[in-house]
């Protein structure tokens, strides 16, 4: 039997070990891993960091705010008609889907080879009533928008400030 005193000591040691370990993960995880030193420190922490979703750089709006391109798409129906959509217009700040949607659109724009087909398949199903043949996924990149533009009553998403390019054209399977 472990005596009461030793049990208390072991508990104290275990608690201290956990606190030291977790504090190390909190401090090291966000550190830029460009140096060999930080990379080496991260090795033993890696499973813990990933399994518990603790691996975050805490780089909110950093180093620069960055203007993410706006996601748009055009549905091409069987008659060759084009139906343009600007999904971000229907989003609402107060709804949880707002930032999740933006994150998804970013993924489609940033990694079209990975996510564009799945996104197109989803959108084809969503707009099945339009009998889509294909979907053209687009990105609208905003240009410089100055205070003078604002005072002139313009909007950052006005056509003069936006360059629209095709991300990918995807055929709707089963159409």
């Amino acid at each position, binding site marked *: 039997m472990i005596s009461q005193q030793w049990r208390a000591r072991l508990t*104290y040691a275990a*608690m*201290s070990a*956990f*606190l030291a370990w*977790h*504090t190390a993960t*909190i*401090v090291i995880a*966000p*550190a830029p891993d460009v140096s060999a030193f930080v990379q080496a420190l991260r090795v033993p922490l*890696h*499973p813990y960091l*990933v*399994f*518990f*979703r*603790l691996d*975050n*750089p*805490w*780089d*909110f*709006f*950093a*180093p*620069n*705010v*960055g*203007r*993410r391109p*706006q996601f748009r798409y055009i549905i091409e129906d069987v008659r060759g008609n084009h139906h343009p959509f600007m999904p*971000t217009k229907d989003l609402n*700040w*107060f*709804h*949880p*889907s*707002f*930032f*999740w949607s*933006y*994150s*998804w659109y*970013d*993924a489609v724009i940033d990694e079209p080879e*990975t*996510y564009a087909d*799945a*996104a197109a398949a*989803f959108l084809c*199903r969503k707009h099945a009533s339009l009998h889509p043949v294909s979907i053209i996924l687009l990105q609208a990149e*905003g240009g410089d*928008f100055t*205070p*003078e533009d*604002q*005072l002139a009553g313009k909007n*950052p*998403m006005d056509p003069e400030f936006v360059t629209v390019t095709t991300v990918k054209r995807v055929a709707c399977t089963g159409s």
Partner: protein
Amino acid sequence: MHRILEFVRNVFAALGRAWSGFWFQTSVTTPLELARMGIGAALLFHYAMATPFLFDLWGEGGWVPRALVLENKTDPWMQSLLYYFTAPWQWVAFHALFLVCSAALMVGWRTSWVKWIVLVGQISYDYRTPVLFYGVDKILACLLLIMCVAPIGRAMSLDRVRAVRAAKLEKLAATLPPYASPWAGACTRLMQIQMAVLFFYSGVGKLRGDDWWNGDALWVVFITGEHYNRFMLDLLASHYWLTNVGTYGTVLIELAFPFLIWQRRTRPYLLAAAIFLHVQFAVLMGLFYFSFVMVMGHMSFVRPEWLARLGQAWKRRMGDMEMIYDGRCGFCVRSMAWFLAFDGLGQVRIRDFRIDPSPVVSDAQVEKALYLVLPDGRALPGFEAYRYVVLRVPGLWWQIPFFYVPVLSRLCGHPIYNWIAANRGRLSSLRLGLARPLAK
């Protein structure tokens, strides 16, 4: 040699004391409980609103099919329960369980294990569709893990109410001392470090960007699609210096916070600044969920003595309240045990008129209904007594909707109370909700 050993021993002893002093200060859990309630509420509200999109966000035919996620999964340690679901009912059951556990976390019911389910749920949602998570999902997992190892649910919770009620069923005047432990202090410290480190890296990261160095970041934020705010752009365009002030102010607060939040004198100012910053993020940028969760994380810096002072001030302001009840009625005693268990500040005194008659209310009156005596000498009977108390005892605020619906509450409340009071003898014999017989 002896002196060297002595010196080394002294150094280690001093280090040990410093370590214990930093981490293991006996503390109550109230700062962590504030974070628990807020985070539970935020998760419940947020994910409940996401329910109509359950299959779009995390389902097979949704935005990102599971096969695609697994194909691009770069690390075997990324795990989600949702990887293993095959039938739609499993998603629904999982989501329902997650919502119920979030609600339980909020109210502190069975906290010791529901917090783990909430953590597993949050991580599972995150990893099921990794492209979806943004700032708040990152901080949530970190705070939830700390709450999982912390002894939360010991105050401001239904678990605490149950414990107090059990003690009061033994003896109605019994009080349960507030829970405090060195581990609670250590976990509070851990959450504080988490928030300070977050601010530090966030501030340092901004220093590397031109938007922040040049003082234009605020302008750029408001012209982006997701944070577009016409009112703010109009204001900043005509007074551009506000953009610079806001930009540099944000960096200043983020950099000052991790260093000045620890000092007794500066903590209130830094805490107020951090909360102010997040209120701005919420109102002006639409980051309501993120800001709320961040503010809840900052609650770890609220000193328990501040809350205690606030409680005392509230108690003084509300004044002394005495409830006179029938100690021979088992149902009345059990009801009082429940009722008083929610009175965490100890605002209500009790008097059993059978053994200690009131000088204000006659025995004949108390035979008919419970009475509440106020500091000015007024005595409120039955339903009116409860109605008065629920507004003034914070632990009972959840009952306000039942007692204060105009007209309807009084219309229904009086007859219901009178019926219960008239039949309390019969109700006593039912022993409703009694875990064990009342102590004689």
